[in-house]
């Protein structure tokens, strides 16, 4: 019997071995496509891991960084942001004979992906659509100075402003300012037909999307990529893993805890630039935070190094004032409005009539770890000066609703300006209320100074006006800044030509994929 049992076991053993061998063979056979490095690249197709599944594209509407990523590839506007500032895109040239007149000359032979010609009429109808507030277009504020748009001929359009606006051209370089066919100028048509370097291919919901090169693009000869296969990776770790394992060639929005993993990899490049800023916003409707002294106290209480370390592993820089555009005369303004000084904060609190502090609620969110960590750090700082803060951390959706309704005392937020011009601050210092602006905050003095800067045509006058605005800003504290976080893209090192746009525009750096290529 024992002999039988042994042979039986042997037989089972060999069956198992056969099975294992089979599985190994199948996996090995499939294995060719599983691993891929940068070296044995057969074609110029870019596999991209995108941080969110884009929503259905609505013309002119700001729908977040994932849709903006697609906008930068599928669409083009009159202007385009580059590392050297803004430059003409669909426009061949822009003439400004006087500060309120802009003459755009379009490039020759422009067409949309559907083959229809792109003319000055399209420019007029698109911009008129974006200037209407009820379309939900996000550049509406930037276009409200337009007095008239006149079509001179097929390639020439003249825009006249009612008053000078120093940021006007910058608004035209926002991804949602793309020139689109008339058929897209409504709320129901998906905004997928553009004049950009890549045409919309095939979308598989929840999985990915293909983008194909467009032969009619105005610089089609410079487009080296054979196409882009976008895969959706909403989870930050899954996205980083996909890049590290070679499943994709490039990812956006590298989460901070993954920075070093990618930097340590031999064949990968991490491109990080300072992007959005984090801050504490206030409900100034009533209660202690209606008092500017209390808001100042908060600005002095925040230990910005701690917050940067806690939320971003120190990937970024502390912000003692407000973000100003780099390489401009504004660069050094308002950089040291406040600093970490708990003693000063306590004095300010006492001066405001709260020598023993008080308690308050702080709105954060459980959905984004970095905002939660920022909140915890600030909570600790405020405790030190006697403000006892209770955290309220709903999911992002709940956070938005509570923020918009003013259902908080203070809140932590992260945000970018739509443009880099100092006038981006206008959105933070006056109504309407919004989920990540200080609730009911309205300071017409700051508004007046910022508007003065926007209207001025003399540089010294512009700088002086911004200086004035920031001086009031420091005293009145519409928000208390914490830090600027690094925002990173990562890719295989054989991808050349990608340029990370610094500052608020870092999210739009995918514009440069139009000229990127793989190099062996």
């Amino acid at each position, binding site marked *: 019997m024992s002999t039988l049992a042994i042979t039986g076991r042997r037989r089972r053993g060999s069956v198992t071995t056969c099975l294992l061998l089979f599985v190994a063979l199948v996996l090995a056979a499939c294995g060719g496509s599983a691993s891929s490095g940068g070296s044995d690249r057969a074609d110029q197709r870019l596999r991209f891991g995108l941080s969110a599944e884009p929503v259905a594209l609505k013309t002119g509407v700001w729908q977040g*960084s994932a*849709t903006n990523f697609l906008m930068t590839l599928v669409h083009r506007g009159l202007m385009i942001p580059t590392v050297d500032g803004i430059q003409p895109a669909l426009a061949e040239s822009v003439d400004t004979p006087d500060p309120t007149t802009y003459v755009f000359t379009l490039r020759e032979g422009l067409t949309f992906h559907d083959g229809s010609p792109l003319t000055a009429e399209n420019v007029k109808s698109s911009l008129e659509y974006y200037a209407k507030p009820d379309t939900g277009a996000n550049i509406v504020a930037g276009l409200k100075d337009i007095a008239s748009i006149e079509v001179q001929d097929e390639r020439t359009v003249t825009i006249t402003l009612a008053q000078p606006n120093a940021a006007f051209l910058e608004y035209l370089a926002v991804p949602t300012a793309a020139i689109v066919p008339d058929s897209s100028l409504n*709320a129901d048509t998906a905004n997928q037909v553009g004049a950009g370097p890549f045409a919309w291919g095939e979308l598989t919901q929840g999985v990915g999307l293909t983008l194909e090169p467009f032969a009619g693009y105005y610089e089609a000869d410079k487009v080296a990529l054979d196409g882009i296969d976008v895969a959706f990776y909403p989870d930050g770790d899954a996205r980083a893993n996909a890049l590290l394992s070679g499943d994709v060639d490039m990812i956006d929005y590298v989460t901070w805890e993954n920075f070093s993993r990618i930097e340590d990899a031999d064949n990968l490049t991490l491109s990080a630039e300072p992007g959005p800023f984090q801050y504490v916003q206030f409900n100034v409707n009533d209660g202690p935070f209606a008092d500017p002294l209390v808001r100042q106290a908060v600005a002095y209480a925040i230990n910005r190094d701690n917050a940067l370390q806690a939320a971003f592993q120190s990937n970024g820089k502390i912000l003692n004032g407000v973000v100003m555009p780099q390489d401009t005369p504004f660069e050094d303004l308002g950089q040291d409005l406040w600093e970490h000084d708990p003693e000063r904060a306590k004095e300010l609190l006492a001066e405001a009539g709260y020598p023993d502090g008080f308690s308050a609620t702080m709105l954060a969110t459980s959905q984004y770890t970095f905002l939660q960590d920022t909140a915890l750090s600030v909570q600790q700082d405020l405790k030190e000066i006697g403000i006892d803060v209770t955290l309220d951390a709903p999911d992002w959706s709940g956070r938005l609703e509570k923020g918009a309704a003013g259902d908080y005392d203070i809140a932590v937020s992260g945000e970018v300006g739509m443009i880099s011009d100092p006038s981006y601050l206008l959105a933070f210092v006056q109504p309407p209320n919004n989920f990540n602006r200080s609730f009911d905050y309205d300071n017409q003095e700051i508004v007046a100074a910022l508007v003065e800067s926007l209207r001025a045509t003399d540089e010294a006058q512009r700088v002086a006006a911004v200086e004035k605005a920031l001086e009031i800003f420091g005293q009145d504290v519409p928000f208390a800044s914490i830090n600027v976080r690094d925002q990173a893209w990562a890719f295989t090192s054989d991808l050349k030509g990608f340029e990370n746009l610094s500052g608020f525009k870092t999210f739009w750096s995918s514009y440069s994929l139009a000229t990127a290529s793989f190099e062996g």
Partner: protein
Amino acid sequence: MLGYILRRVAVGIGLVYLVLTLIFLALHLVPGDPALLLLSQGDGASATPEAVERVREQLGLNQPLLVQYWDFLSGVVTGDLGQSFRTSQDVAAAIGERLPRTLELVGLATLIAVVLGIPWGAWAARRGGLVDSTTTTLTSIGVALPVFVFGSVLILFFSLKLAWLPAGGFASMGEDPGRHLQLLVLPAIALAVGFTSVIARMTRSAVQEMLHADWVRTARSLGLSRRRVFRRYVLRNSLNPVVTVIGLGVGTLLGSTVLVERVFNYPGLSSLLVDAVTARDYPVVQGVVITIAVLFIAINIVVDVIYGVLDPRVRR
């Protein structure tokens, strides 16, 4: 018998209606405004109130709740689950795409768990000693180990260190069968670990209990070999409770797919549900919940009917 089946189906329909109403109310009670969310994705300039109001109108969210409820119910009755707020995709189509993927994952995980779990448990019970105690330890770990932890470990070894398999994603069977299977392997294993342990433990204890039954000794004394008794009688008789556990476990697996699909970036039904809840995409949440509810209730009805066939006493 027909009356019995009709009764069960009627109760089932009542239950589905109850789920419909509950999920509708729950969604509208939970804080969060889909329109505001649609216009506030990630970082960026914030939406104007006009824009939010306009989107709300487009989505029909400015209608009174009762009107929305009626529209929703009449839609469901005519088989129209609406369109996703986010992607404008037909909800029914989205579910049609995703459900088979999740079922495929659950199916493969169940297969792995059954094929490994039953022989393992039986072997441990029969051999005893070191094999048995090792099995008990390993299966305890297997049951306790969260799927997302094991999933991450699998990715670390098989994708990042060894580069044998992709770290996650999806490829359709029609376009790239090889990659489709590759992408299924790790999530299925991650999902199967806990289930395998449960099945192994259940089989082990059932077999152990059976081995000490009087009829086993009787069978041996009648001259049947140990092997024959084990294979023919002990194992077969032990499988009843195991089958029940498998039935229950498949339901639990559906729940576990939420985490596995996240870790492996697998676009199944669970990840659709989670994303839809986060985005307050009401039509999608409602559609997915209804689908799951109908599935569960239908399975229950089938089980009830089978019991009715097997045991006439149940029919009363």
